[in-house]
């Protein structure tokens, strides 16, 4: 009640305190009003959303055979429900304990659901596409890049000169090359090294290229975590008689990972957006499939609708990823505090 009472003077104080402020406020309000009316008018009346509505299975699943579409649908549904449970689900302890394992398990499950086997009809990776492929590329590459990045970060801190040398060379080399060059290398040059007939799946090639690239950045993020931990901790652990491996495993790494978490989130979101580069290398992920749909004479010229729609989807996925990461951050900081107490 009190707050409501104070609202008007508050607005007046911050927005209309003098004539200049009033002018600026009015100008901004006018601009916002004009922009939003134009946007809403276009969204509701100007745009022709048939290009989105009629093609939604393509955006979601790409060219996946129609009678098998329940498989990617099931996988996406699992991911969505897992996200919801993680973020707003009940706080039962057994459920919370189960969640990390489920999150890791959902990726191999996705591979089985998409590619078939174990009684499911095999579906070649050339039929994968749309959001499914975008998320698949992101999750698989992050899952592979994370341990590789940790190993590289530890390698770079190592006392053994050869390991240290090669880890540094790897990280520096990969960081010095643009991602698109590595992707081109993976898609265009790797096949030339293999005999004709031997063919590595294009999706696997893409996942490997992303993994190699991202792992170098992950390694640097984790090294940042390593370096922020005071030397005295290591010395204290040594004094307690812990071995080198134990020090890394129990003392340094857990703390370093928590510190590196925000940076790692950044990498994951960046990775998701970078998967759109595969559109210029012939994979029909979200952006690629959209460009193919735009070539359909029925939908020629509907660029605006399609790209607005794409921006919406990418925004949604990235926001959800950011939310998940901040949830994880909160959780580990709480755990850290409880350990300290």
């Amino acid at each position: 009640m009190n707050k409501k009472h104070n609202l008007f003077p508050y607005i007046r104080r911050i927005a209309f305190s003098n004539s200049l402020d009033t002018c600026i406020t009015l100008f901004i309000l006018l601009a916002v009003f004009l922009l939003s009316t134009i946007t809403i008018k276009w969204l509701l009346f100007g745009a022709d959303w048939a290009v989105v509505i009629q093609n939604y299975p393509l955006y979601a699943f790409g060219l996946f055979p129609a009678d098998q579409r329940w498989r990617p649908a099931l996988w996406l549904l699992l991911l969505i429900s897992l996200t919801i449970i993680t973020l707003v689900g009940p706080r039962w302890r057994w459920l919370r304990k189960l969640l990390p394992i489920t999150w890791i398990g959902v990726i191999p499950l996705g591979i089985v659901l998409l590619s078939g086997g174990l009684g499911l009809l095999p579906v070649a990776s050339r039929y994968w596409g749309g959001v499914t492929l975008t998320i698949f590329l992101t999750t698989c590459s992050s899952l592979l890049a994370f341990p590789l990045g940790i190993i590289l970060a530890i390698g770079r801190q190592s006392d053994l000169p050869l390991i240290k040398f090669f880890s540094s060379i790897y990280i520096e080399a990969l960081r010095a090359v643009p991602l698109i060059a590595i992707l081109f290398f993976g898609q265009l040059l790797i096949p030339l090294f293999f005999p004709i007939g031997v063919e590595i799946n294009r999706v696997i090639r893409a996942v490997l290229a992303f993994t190699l690239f991202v792992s170098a950045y992950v390694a640097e993020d984790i090294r940042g975590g390593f370096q922020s931990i005071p030397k005295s901790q290591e010395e204290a652990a040594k004094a307690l008689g812990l071995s080198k491996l134990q020090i890394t495993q129990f003392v340094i790494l857990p703390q370093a990972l928590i510190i590196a978490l925000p940076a790692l989130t950044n990498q994951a979101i960046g990775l998701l957006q970078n998967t759109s580069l595969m559109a210029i290398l012939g994979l029909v992920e979200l952006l690629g499939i959209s460009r193919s749909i735009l070539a359909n004479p029925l939908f020629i010229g509907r660029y605006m609708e399609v790209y607005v729609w794409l921006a919406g989807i990418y925004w949604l996925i990235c926001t959800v990823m950011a939310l998940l990461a901040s949830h994880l951050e909160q959780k580990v900081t709480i755990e850290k505090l409880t350990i300290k107490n």
Partner: protein
Amino acid sequence: MRRFLVGMASMSLLLGGCATTSEVNQSRLDLIKERNELVCGVSGKIPGFSFLESDGRYQGIDVDICKAFAAAFVGNPDKVQYRPLTAAERFTAVRTGEVDLLSRNTTVNLSRDSSGGNGLTFAPVIFHDGQGLMVKRNSRINNINGLARKSICVGSGTTTEQNINDAFEAISLPYTPIKYQDLDQVIQGYSQGRCAAMTSDRSQLAAARSSFASPKDHIILEDVLSKEPLAPASLGGDQKLSDAMRWVIYSLISAEEQGITKDNIDEKLKMAKENSQLKPLRRFLGVEGDLGEKLGLDNDFVVKVIRATGNYGEIYDRHLGPDSDVPIPRSLNEIYTKGGVHISPPFN
């Protein structure tokens, strides 16, 4: 250091060995038959040529050519895997055998064909593209002479700009070029009425026109200012496959020359079977002789192809004809008897 160098040398030899020893003598055609499926590289992003329909199937003139090949090689036009390829990766994909052949509106030129260049072999041209001009229907301009002293929207610094210049110099008439950075801006400029005509490749003009509010108000002139012959391609040095491809395309053209269509093919076949005097038709449809066998195909491969896709004219009309969504006047793409350049050598 020396050991390192020796190591490097042997490594590169090993890699080189991988690349060269693998070139087996078996023709790709046998591999396609063995696999019972054709892997066809398409673009997937060009209106009228290859694009994705809402039900997830590829469609377009390039796609129909793939179907014709599949019908001839494995007897079923649906046994095709389409691989969407970008312009950058298309030649690598053929080289590494990721695709059997390209049907991806690729312009034929010397460097792509020669063994010193991309080392491809091209089948006959299936679409003669070329730079064209688009004007508004109510402007009453119907050829390039009508554009004298008019303004033309053109992409700057491209061969397009050079070509339009040459064309007007050849007829020694003045014109005003209005230059834009890229094609989208050219289209924008033209549709805002800043110029009387716009110029680009005819297939692109047709696609641009389809995106206009009222496409019927714009016409593409018959004049063609440059040569962009688009043809399917396969890896060079595989005579069996390239011959088979060549004659499948010729069979499409020859069928149009003879008036054989998807609808009357069974009738024609019956006629050929009953009438032993119709030697050329009997040879063409494989009732007599062993033309197909010579190519490593079934003798009646022409029948299968026409049943699957119809003749060349039917394919063209389906995707680029006047009633299609991306109409392009046939002009050069007519068969030779109607003033075009498509002609099939005899099936003897």
